[in-house]
């Protein structure tokens, strides 16, 4: 139990770090910076938001939560849903590209192996 607590704390700290950087950029953009207290509050709320997302995701009937489940969580807002759907499609096409590249390389390797074995046989 203590292990979990310290892991949660470490992950919260990691979230806090990224929240700080995101707000630093926004602070510069909008010409108004965020004080330490509000950064801590936003980080804490983001951590709780993660918990909220989890409570939505756990209703997925499978053992592995996938992109479709995340899209469902986003559907409460049209703008968010569209954005996440687009991102999901980008990821899917990147995965597809990687798969095809791997297939090509495997094919290349196979034919190279065949060449090598043919050469060996000739010797």
């Amino acid at each position, binding site marked *: 139990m203590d292990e979990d607590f310290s892991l949660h704390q470490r992950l919260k700290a990691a979230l806090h770090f990224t929240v700080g950087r995101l707000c630093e950029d926004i602070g510069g953009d909008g010409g108004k910076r965020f004080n330490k207290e509000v950064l801590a509050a936003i980080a804490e709320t983001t951590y709780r938001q993660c918990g909220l997302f989890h409570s939505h995701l756990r209703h997925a009937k499978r053992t592995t939560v996938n992109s479709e489940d995340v899209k469902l969580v986003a559907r409460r*807002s049209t703008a968010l849903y569209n954005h996440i759907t687009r991102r999901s499609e980008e990821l899917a096409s990147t995965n597809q590209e990687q798969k095809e590249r791997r297939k090509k390389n495997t094919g290349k390797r196979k034919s190279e192996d065949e060449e090598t074995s043919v050469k060996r046989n000739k010797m």
Partner: protein
Amino acid sequence: MEERTTEVVFKKETVGKLLSLFFKDEKTKVSGDAVILMAEMLKIFVEEAARRSQKQAAAEDCDVVDIEHFEKILPQLYNSNFKISSTLLSHFLPVPNIQIAADLNALKK
């Protein structure tokens, strides 16, 4: 301030570990793509929270964004992109319920 060359994101590892921790007792796993999308949702959450707070600070003629500005925009934030039921809302927010109820009532008018 130096220009960032790379986009600030929530690390896949952090979000993945956090979700795994929440899911610990349920033995559920989260796919790689789902973690990336979750990280994206969290980033959007922070950006919205930050920008809305900044606007609130501007409306109050303040130079620095502080916790009061953030607390004021929370109900709007949840009502827009991150709609959740009011019971969950009161369970998770770091502000007293009375304040939330008052804010929500004000929004209804």
